[in-house]
């Protein structure tokens, strides 16, 4: 009376539909991860070349320091990693995030040297956040820093996920500035730590020299945008 074969056939068709959906999803997501990896590769090559250039810098004049020296992809990579972390479940993402953090630190150190040597008015903000718990203040801070970055291209924001503490370089950063996971988000501006959400106006008060950067002075090299987005 009951056609069991049909029940089985329908099960197989349904399972087939689901597996195809999973397959297609994985296909596109692995393409995304590959895209992230290739951006990251490009950035590390860029950084390596910048470091090499810096080593040669003593023989160069600061006017030769231009866009080609800096890694413009760092900001867009941050957005993409952030998006992938939320939407793609893959262990690759954590690894990508780790090497991204390392690239940020390298970029930070190099840029500090270059600005000091060439007298650029760059402002460096280190930003520590967390994804472990539901940190709504961190989300707000991320958006505020986006605005700041857009308003002042000279601002370079380096964001670090506190949960990557098993990465020794990030751990070193947190211990230098005594960042605690109970007091996040935290900003480091001129070696001073500010915990809790800081809106754009507050940051402008902390760093009054920001205002002087408006309007952008001609002749200065345009600083590429760096990540802020958590």
């Amino acid at each position, binding site marked *: 009376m009951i056609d069991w074969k049909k029940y089985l056939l329908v099960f197989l068709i349904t399972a087939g539909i689901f597996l195809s959906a999973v397959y297609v999803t994985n296909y596109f997501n692995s393409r995304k991860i590959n895209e992230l990896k290739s951006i990251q590769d490009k950035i590390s090559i860029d950084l390596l070349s910048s470091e090499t250039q810096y080593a040669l810098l003593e023989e160069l004049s600061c006017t030769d320091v231009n866009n080609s020296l800096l890694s413009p992809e760092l900001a867009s990579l941050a957005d*993409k990693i952030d998006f992938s972390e939320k939407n793609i479940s893959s262990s690759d993402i954590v690894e990508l995030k780790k090497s991204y953090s390392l690239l940020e630190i390298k970029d930070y150190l190099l840029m500090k040297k270059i600005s000091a040597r060439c007298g650029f008015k760059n402002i460096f903000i280190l930003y520590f956040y967390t994804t472990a718990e539901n940190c709504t203040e961190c989300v707000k801070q991320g*958006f505020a820093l986006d605005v700041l970055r857009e308003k002042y291209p000279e601002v370079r924001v380096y964001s670090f996920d506190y949960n990557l503490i098993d990465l020794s370089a990030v751990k070193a950063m947190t211990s230098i500035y005594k960042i605690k996971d109970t007091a996040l988000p935290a900003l480091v501006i001129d070696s001073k730590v500010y915990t809790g959400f800081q809106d754009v106006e507050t940051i402008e008060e902390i760093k009054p020299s920001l205002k002087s950067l408006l309007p952008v002075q001609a002749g200065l090299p345009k600083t590429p945008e760096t990540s802020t987005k958590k």
Partner: protein
Amino acid sequence: MEHFSTIVFYVFSFLSVYVQVFFLVTFFEKRKSIITRKGSIELQEYPAVTVIVPCYNEESTIGKTVRSLLDLDYPKEKLNLILVDDGSRDATWEAIKSFESLENVRTFKKENGGKYTALNLGIEHTETPYLGCLDADSFVHPQALKRIMSYFLNDDKTMAVAPSIMVHEPKNIIQGAQKAEYDMAIYTKKMLAFMGGIHVTPGPFSIFRKKVFNDLGNYRHAHNTEDQEIALRMQSHGYKIEHCPDAYVYTVSPNTIIKLYRQRLRWIYGFIKNAFDYRFLLFKKKYGNIAFFTIPSGLISVASVIFLLFFVGNKVVAFASDKILQIQGAGFDSVHNFHVDWFFFNIQTVSFVSIILYGLVISSLFLGRRMSGSKKLFSLDILYFLFVYSVLAPFWMMKAIYNAIWSKESSWALERQVNS
């Protein structure tokens, strides 16, 4: 928690896709046996049929209902009407009495006792080998009876035949949504008929052999859904129920959210209660597809519609709170920034599965429309349907479950009063 709800989503969507694929496979298996006739047909014989019309406060539609029955293309001497006024408080009785003079019409007035009591009164006065009922808010197509009777004449085992119900002149979004739903039901009902798994012989114009009531007894109160209970009772005794896709019946559907809510609350409540009363059917081989397919899929659909509300609702809340944080953190202007990079197009299995599921639902609507002979396959009704049922249905379903647990009856009389 997020993880858990995603797993539940996959389980429900797997089961829902399974049900839709089951219908599709049945369709491809049996599509040659789906007959949609145009115009009049001749039968080798015309068995006598009695149609019972139970009414409660239906003065405005009863006249039209009876006239549509009188206009049926069926020999007059073979068609008897029994009009039962179940203690109406309006002018229904006067409206009914105006047909008294006709030879094949009998009228009865009784104390209000519920629809099933009115039907049973009619059954007691039925002397023909076939009988049917027609709700007083519905009208029949002139060919409906002949087409239905052809199913009885072709198969001695057929004990009841359900018609195709359509929404009478849909005028607003609520009725448009129901039109799409009813059109889809024509398809699913026919597929269930092929599988021997029909679980409701609807109040509007289902026709039975009198033997059914002689053997199994009259209608029962059955939580105000006597048309579901009789079908389950028939199924539990192995009585065959057919569906005649080209027997059209037009029903006046609720035209406001609150009326629709009341009607569906009664239906779903009745479904849950009857499914509970007939739980002995569940997963027993001898009862066939009703035991393994119809009742389980009905219960699953109630559960999944409710779950989907929370699942989607949760996502909407998350999206909104993210936007609020963005405004708090960065001000209003920042909201307009969005990325056009393909990278930010969120490709998730959940989205694919949802698209497949909606695709299957919409194709079953198209198949239903085609079976009903409708030429217009696509209309805005589909969107109304998706909206109304995904947003509103969870509420009457949750309330129905709540009522079922506490055995709070939904009132047929209240629904009638609101309708009239």
